[in-house]
């Protein structure tokens, strides 16, 4: 159930009240409340099965919550899913062109991908694919950025680069919601950590 709470203020970019979700007989999310202000970086942590991905997908409208209300302060959203299937016969450059406006060459150079820009995805390593997925989200001029396990397959240099980008986005006033099984990496940067627990 989705509606606009009467007390919603524009500064609140993500607001969820009492959202629940059940898959057949399994309850994955129960009466969960969440709030993120504009420009806030919220880290979402929790054990496997605590409902992190379901909650993120619910916010993004990819999964329907069974009950509760939620509201997003903007539709300018960028998303990095936990799992992603890349097109096989599409180059890195073409892929980014599908999501990023304007020139992508400089971005590829920054991330050490310039020489591979004409390569099809089937010829790229897992880490390079993950960089492409991050790039499409980081450079979309989105107001809300949602990351689900963004460090999959990234090396240390790329993790550092990603942290710098997050810092830049935060300074620009973007709202960031990130869930990760390596929360210590983001601890310094995040404003708040929300711990999710699997419903009983």
């Amino acid at each position, binding site marked *: 159930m989705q509606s606009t709470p009467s007390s919603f203020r524009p500064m609140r970019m993500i607001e969820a009240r009492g959202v629940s979700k059940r898959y057949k007989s399994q309850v994955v999310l129960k009466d969960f409340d969440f709030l993120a202000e504009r420009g806030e970086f919220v880290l979402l942590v929790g054990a496997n099965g605590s409902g992190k991905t379901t909650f993120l*997908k619910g916010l*993004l*409208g*990819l*999964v*329907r919550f069974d009950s509760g209300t939620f509201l997003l302060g903007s*539709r*300018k*959203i*960028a*998303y990095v*899913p936990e*799992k*992603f*299937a890349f*097109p*096989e*016969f*599409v180059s890195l450059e*073409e*892929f980014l*062109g*599908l*999501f990023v406006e304007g020139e992508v060459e400089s971005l590829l150079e920054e991330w050490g991908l310039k020489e591979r820009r004409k390569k099809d995805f*089937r010829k790229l390593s897992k880490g390079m694919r993950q960089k492409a997925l991050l790039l*499409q989200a980081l450079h979309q001029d989105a107001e809300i950025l*949602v990351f689900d396990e963004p460090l999959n397959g990234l090396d240390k240099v790329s993790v550092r680069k990603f942290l710098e980008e997050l810092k830049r986005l935060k300074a620009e006033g973007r709202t960031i919601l990130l869930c990760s099984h390596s929360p210590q990496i983001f601890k310094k940067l995040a404003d708040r950590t929300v711990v999710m627990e699997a419903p009983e």
Partner: protein
Amino acid sequence: MRKVFRAHFAYLCNRTNLWILLFVLLLSLLGFTEAALTLAEELSSLKGLYYFENSFFLLKLLAPFTAIFTFAYAFLKERDQYGELFLVKEISRLWYFSSKVLALSLYLAFFLLLEFSLYLLSGAVLLRFVKPNLLAFLRLYLVSLYYGLLGLAFIQTVKNLLVLVIPYLLFIAGLIVNDSEGAFRLYYNLLFPNFLPERPELVAGRLNFPMLFLLALFNLFLYLEKDL
């Protein structure tokens, strides 16, 4: 919006689809050659008809199979993930789904155009003449589109590729049902369109158009309601 279409086609051109396309085209070529070369020389006046009937029968079996697989495979959860990157933005599920079904319909039209060209080319080379019969191919496109959407409805409901055996069996059963006449044949063909055994015309005729529209709507409803 152009970017969404580009993404649809980028994902449609995957190794699995291209192998299937190649396999079906090769099988068709073998079938067309067999149809052109089998008939004895003394019956050369019947060759044109024999060539069409045998070639078309083979295509009747291959085209719905290709459509069912292509439509369903495109909407398998992992093959449809790229949609999430569009759907989180201003693009609605309605637009995304409609554009993807349109892209699949164009892909299917391209496949049948290749088959039609191969049919004409084989006929021209091996028989020196060939009757185009374009209308029959257009009807085959309609039938294939219908079964493609039927396959899509099954995969959206059951989410397992094995379930695609059912729409194909329903199509094959239609070939048997249509050997007998009666009201049941018409009812069956309303739900599962197929050709008359004696000529390349649809049993239910134009009544299949509203059914095709309803099936597309049903698929849209499933897509709007489901969790991605």
